[in-house]
Every structure is written in structure tokens, then in C-alpha cells.
């Protein structure tokens, strides 16, 4: 089962796993808060109090979650500069849109409540919900394209123009990440809130879970049938068990365990994709000789050794303090917890107590 590792270099293999770890961490953690962001649309949230409640469930943690993306990008740059350079330059236009969505979403979360005006709030609410949707779709598309390949020449540059990346893989990966985020978001809302909205999220989750997980399942299976290995198939099976387990647990009302099972599904499912891709990191659809692989795209062993020490020191500490944050803010929230909205200009006209 593990023989396919045997003839591959060790340090690039480890760093392929580390980069995969950061991407999976991002998909799992930002997955649910992107989902919550999408749920802030009028399609799910009934009124302003509910939208603020949703926002505050992710309030203390969303920024820390987003750093997983930053670090996934930077770790790719450090460990596989050729992968980073080819992928990011090939997807120039979609990444520009992703950046704009990331900017608007982040600023929207912080600025939304800073002025008591319906237009202001509606505008930033759209920035958050639509921004979350665009980010999830684009990141899913990016990862799908790195797993299925891009038209790259010998130098690793995209051929075929600015839109050469438009393939069915974009839709597959994009919908996969959007569906996954919505499932995780609904499960998180059911876990983190109480009252009517908790039950609405729970009911909707049970109804939509099979449908929303369909695209990601399709992506995982597609990779298994094209380049699967015994180990990646094993991960696929575990992911399938986790998905069924999640549905059963959620149906029985175990929101915490159900959420954990969904997270396991994400971890094993995305791992199965990365394992199937290995030892490629970004295949070329033009010529097998142009495939970027863990050996052809990686940094030197010295750099990877240095970065390994940084990761050995940094990752465990990171996991400890991020877990602590979730512990500090473990309380379930209800609409009653949300303080009255203020406009600061109006406050300044009020009389002191």
C-alpha cells in the first residue's frame, strides 16, 4: 500500500504532506466560516438579528482560519516554488477575483456593524455572503485544476490565453467547495447557536447534506479512477464512512459528533485527492514531460530541512492556541446574546448615565 512512496525523495514528500495539511486545514476551518458567510444571505437568515448572530458565531475565529490560506500559499511558495509560480500565474484572472472577494469579505465583516444604516448593512452583507461564495468556488476550482492539470509548456507557463483554464474541472471543484462549505456552515450553526435558527440549520442540513456533498464526492472519485492508489482508495473509503456517520449522527441529534464526522470527511476526502495526485503537484495537459512533480517543483533539501524545523516547532503550538480560542468561545449563542446595534454618531448625542 505504501510502495509508491519508495522511489520518491523523502523531504519533498514530507513537504507535499505539509502543504496538503495546510490546504486541508484551510478547507476544513475556513470551510465552515465561508459557509456561515453564505448563510448570511436572505435565503437563510430571516432578519438582521439572525444575520448578526451568524456573523458572531465566526467572529472570533474567522481571521485565524483565513491565515491557513495565507500559510498554504506561502508554504507552497517556500517548498514548491515552481508549483506556486505556475499555478498562480496560470490562474491570473480567477485569482484576481478571489483576492477582490477576500478583500470585500474581510472588510465587510469588520465594517458591517460600524454604521446604523440599512443600505450600509445590506451592502456589506452582500460583500460577506457573495464574497464567501466566490472565495469558496474559486479555491475549489484552483485545487481541482491543480489536481486535473493545466495546459503548461516546458517552462511551466500557461499556453492558450487568459481563459485556458476554463474546463469542467472548474465547475466540479468550485461546486465541491461551495457544497462542502455550506454543509460545514450549517453544521457549525447547528452546533454554535440555539433557538429557532439552530433547528432550521439542523433540518436544512439533513435535507441537503447528500446533495451538497455530491460534487466533492464526484471530484474525489474522479481522481481515484484516473490516478488512484491503494492508499488513496483507503482514504476514500474512510471518507465515505465518515459522511454516512455524519448523517447518522446528525439525524440522531448529535451535533458535536456530527460536525466532527463532517470534518473527518473533509480531511480524508481531500487527503484522498492529494494522495491520488502524488507524486505530481500540477500535471500539464499538453505533455507528460511538462508535469510538475514533487521532485521537479521542489526547493532544495537544505531549504526543506530548515522549513521542517520551523513546522515542527510552529504547527503544534499553532494547533494548541487555535484550539484554545475555540474553547474560550465555545458558548452557544442566541439572538438574545447580540447587543443592540448602535450608530456612534447618535451615541455621541446621548446624555451620560
Amino acid at each position, binding site marked *: 500500500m505504501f510502495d509508491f512512496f519508495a522511489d520518491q525523495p523523502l523531504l519533498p514528500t514530507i513537504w507535499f504532506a505539509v502543504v496538503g495539511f495546510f490546504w486541508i486545514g484551510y478547507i476544513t476551518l475556513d470551510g465552515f466560516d465561508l459557509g456561515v458567510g453564505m448563510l448570511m444571505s436572505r435565503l437563510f437568515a430571516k432578519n438582521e438579528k439572525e444575520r448578526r448572530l451568524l456573523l458572531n458565531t465566526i*467572529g472570533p475565529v474567522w481571521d485565524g482560519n483565513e491565515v491557513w490560506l495565507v500559510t498554504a500559499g*506561502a508554504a507552497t511558495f517556500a517548498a514548491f516554488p515552481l508549483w*506556486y509560480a505556475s499555478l498562480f*500565474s496560470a490562474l491570473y484572472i480567477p485569482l484576481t477575483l478571489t483576492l477582490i472577494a477576500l478583500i470585500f469579505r474581510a472588510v465587510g465583516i469588520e465594517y458591517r456593524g460600524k454604521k446604523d444604516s440599512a443600505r450600509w448593512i445590506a451592502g456589506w452583507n452582500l460583500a460577506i455572503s457573495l464574497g464567501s461564495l466566490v472565495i469558496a468556488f474559486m479555491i475549489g476550482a484552483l485545487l481541482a485544476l491543480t489536481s486535473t492539470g493545466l495546459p503548461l509548456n516546458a517552462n511551466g*507557463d500557461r499556453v492558450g490565453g*487568459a481563459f485556458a483554464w476554463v474546463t469542467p474541472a472548474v465547475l466540479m471543484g468550485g461546486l465541491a467547495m461551495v457544497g462542502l462549505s455550506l454543509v460545514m456552515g450549517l453544521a457549525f450553526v447547528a452546533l454554535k447557536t440555539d433557538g429557532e435558527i439552530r433547528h432550521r440549520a439542523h433540518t436544512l442540513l439533513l435535507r441537503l447534506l447528500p446533495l451538497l456533498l455530491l460534487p466533492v464526492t464526484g471530484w474525489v472519485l474522479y481522481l481515484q479512477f484516473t490516478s488512484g492508489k491503494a492508499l488513496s482508495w483507503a482514504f476514500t473509503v474512510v471518507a465515505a464512512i465518515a459522511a454516512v456517520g455524519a448523517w447518522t449522527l446528525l439525524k440522531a441529534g448529535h451535533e458535536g459528533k456530527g460536525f466532527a464526522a463532517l470534518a473527518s470527511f473533509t480531511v480524508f476526502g481531500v487527503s484522498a485527492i492529494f494522495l491520488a495526485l502524488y507524486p505530481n503537484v500540477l500535471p500539464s495537459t499538453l505533455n507528460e514531460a511538462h508535469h510538475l512533480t514533487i521532485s521537479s517543483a521542489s*526547493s532544495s533539501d537544505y531549504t526543506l530541512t530548515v522549513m521542517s524545523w520551523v513546522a515542527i516547532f510552529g504547527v503544534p503550538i499553532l494547533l494548541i492556541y487555535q484550539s484554545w480560542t475555540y474553547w*474560550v468561545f465555545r458558548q452557544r449563542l442566541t439572538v438574545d446574546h447580540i*447587543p443592540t446595534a448602535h450608530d456612534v454618531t447618535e*451615541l455621541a448625542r446621548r446624555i451620560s448615565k
Partner: protein
Amino acid sequence: MDPLEIARWQFGITTVYHFMMVPLTLGLGAVVTGFYIAYIRTNKPEYKRMTKFWGKLYLINFIMGVATGLVQEFQFGMAWSEYSRFVGDVFGAPLAMEGLLAFFVESTFLGLWIFGWDKLKPKIHAACLFMAVAASWLSAYFIIVANSWMQHPVGVEMVDGRPVLNDVWAVLTNNTAMVAYPHALAGAVQVAGGFLVGIAWYKLWKRRRDGVDTIGENGKVVVGQQVEGARDTTDFTVWFKSLRIGAMVGLIGFLGTAFTGHSQAQLMIEQQPMKMAAAEAACHDGTGFSVLSLSSPGAQNCDEVQAILEIPGLLSFLAYEDFTTNVAGITTLMPIYEETYGTHLPDDPELYGERAGSEIDYLPLMEVTYYGFRGMITLGGVSALSFLYVLWVTRKKGEGTVPEAKWISNLAIAGILAPFGANILGWVFTEMGRQPFVVAPNPDGNPAILMFTAAAVSPGVSGFEILFSLVSLALVYAALMVVEIYLLAKYVKAGVVAAMPELVEDPHQDDHDDRDVLAFAY
């Protein structure tokens, strides 16, 4: 459309914009941490108000720095893929360290601070803020390390035509970074000082204009109270202390930039003589320079040139002491550059596009380096003088407040921009002064370890694509700049109550006290 020119404009615009948020985040974060620690130690109400108010402005600005920082990381790969491939073995590492060791800490602990009021014990809560701010300073270190490697590549050897890391400590302790880092931090501290001074001055002036504070017959200030908006006597103390602390912090920042700037100039003469020549070329040119030497601490820089004259080997080019013959300084350097690094770009259209085989101009844009350098020093110096003035006006405790004149208050607000301008001009000078290189060669290292900017842009990306991102990012940035300034102004006008509704709010009226309401919510 020339992808290189568009990509350079994009990098310049997005970086300058990002670096308007960054120094304020670095400097103001440290100041707010100081206020919070002072509150925990003394329990004085003004320190709590200062923490809350300045902390609110800090957060409004912080998020813009985060949002625009993502663009910085992504665009190396998007627009500069050839650069990323060439330097990836060494350049990616500090960025990954920044993410893993600094940015994670910063974002996570800041979330704990924002939402942790009344939830965490005060000391732990303050420790969270401290961690977030310390991590932002560490983050700046890693970014400066990466940038300094582009100015002065160390710790690498050439393997198969690419620089490969062989000594990470040399990169982390690059002497260029060791002076650039404190210089950037000192600049950030001065930005925070100017921000405090401008806003606190305005708030004190507003209290006088609204008749809250008056001047008694003995010439001393009579601090009044206004129940509306909680403009009580503590409110006066908030602004008075903010003003004085701001001026002191700003002066410390200015002195820091002056001392570290001096060391930087000395290193630059050795490491990037052409950049220094371009910056100093006009130094001894009659009137233009003498005005500068008389009117601002910029005079120190010509003294620096004098001091550097003592370094052997550089004497020949520094001997030409005025502008007309100073060109000879550059003409002395030019043949050395041409001999060492070539007269023409390699004839490789794959890498250099239409510039393949063209002649290399080793002189950076002189107007930019010359005026950028002087503009930086002038703005920093003028701002420092204003801090001295503030300290003089407020020198007697319990007696002074700001003058009644509106124009001084307007000037104080405008003065906030001076240290920002100095920061921006400093970066523009050092980055454009590095041209035509994106990785400037190390005179003591392997002369093959360099990269011309012309070779760095993504070969597979069209000018249209880069223009698309340049236009859309510029529009988004411009719109968000308006929004950020609007919000900052709104919060400044409202004053402390903007960050502390509890000062004017009856808890029984707004929120039923049997409800367990969050201390902070978005």
C-alpha cells in the same frame, strides 16, 4: 501592452497602499498595548478609555492591512512567476515563516482580544493583545528579511542557474535587514505618534470650541463637563495624555529613523553604490541642497556622505562634490557595473520579451531617488518639529490645553499624513533605487546572483490580464480608502463613546439585565 510596466505599476500601487495600513498597525498596536497595561496596573479610567478608543481605530485600520496583505502574497506568483521560480528556494522561506510563526499568532490572538472583553481575565486579555502586536512586529521582521535579500542577497550559492539557500542564518541576520527592520519599525512608531497627536489635538480643540473647556483669568485651563456624549473631565485627560504621549512616541520614532537611517546609508554605499549615488547626486548642488540642509534634519545626510568619504575605495567616486561633476560619480560607477554585470540584457526573448538584447541602464530614475530621499527626510523632520511644538504647548501639567485657533487644529489633522508620506517615500526610494535589478547583486558575493526586473514578470500572462487586475484592484482600493477614512472620521468625531457605549447607555433601557449580552459583537 507591456506586461512588465503594468506589473510594476501594480506592484508599486498595491504595495504603497498596503504600507499605509501596516505602519499604523505596527505603531498604534504597540501604543494601545501600552495603554491597556497602564490601565491594568493603575486602574485609572482614562487608560481604559484610551485603550478602547484607540483600539477601535486600530481595528478599523488593521482589517485593511490584512485584506491588502493577501494581494501582496499572491501577486509574486501571479504577476512575477519568473521571479518566484528564480528566488523561490530562498525567498519563499521567510514568507512561510511569517505565516506560520507570526501571522497565525497575530490573527488568532487579536480575535481573542476583540471578543475577549469580560470573558478573559484582564491580565490574560492584555496578554492576548500583547501577543497579537508582538507577532505583527515579528511579521514585519520576516517581510523585511525577504525584502533585504532582494537588496543584498546572502546565504546562497548558484546551482543550475538559480540561487539556492545554503545558510539560513546569513539570510535571517543579513546586515541589510538588521538596519532596515529597526528603520521600518521606527517609521511605524512615528506614524502612530502623528496619528495620536493629530486626533487628540483636534479633540481638545473641539472641547474648547464647544465651550466645554475654558481659559480662566489666571491663564490656566478650566476643564469643564458636558453630559452629552460623556465629555467629562476624564475625557479631557484622555485627549491630553494621548496628545503628550503621542508627541513623545512620535519623537522616539523620529530619532529611531534618523539613527537607523544613518546606518542604512553607510551600508547602501557599500552594497548598492549606484542607489546611493542616485540619491545623493544632487546633494552638493548649490541652492537645492542648502535649503534642505538649513531647514530640516536632512542636513545630516550630507554629513553622512562626508563621513563615508573615509571608507577607502569609495573615495574616487565621492570626491566629485557637486551635481555637475557628481555625474562623474555615476559615470565612474557605470563602467564598473557594465564590466561586472554586462552592457546588454541577454538575447533571450523567452525571459526578457521585447527587452531581450537591449542596453542596460544602471541608473535608477534620479528624480525619484533624489526627491524621494529628500521628501522622506523633510516630512519626517517637519513632523518631528510639530511633536516638539506639542510638547512645549502642553509642558505645564494642569495648566495648558491647545490654542483656540482652528487653522492649527486643521494643520494637526493634516500633519497625520506627514509620517505616512515619509514611510511611503522611503519605500519608493529604496525599491525604485534598486532598479534595474529586482534582486540587486551583492558586491561581495557571486556576481551571477542577480535578477533584472525585465526578466521577473510572468512570461505566460498577457498585458491585458495584468491591466485587468491593476484597474480592478486600484478601483477597489480607492473606494475602500474613502470608506476607511470616512469610518475613522466618524469614530473620531463621536469620541470615546464610539468605543464605549456603556458611558451613555442605560443598561436597563437598552438591554434587559437578565439577558447575557456579549461584551462585544460585530
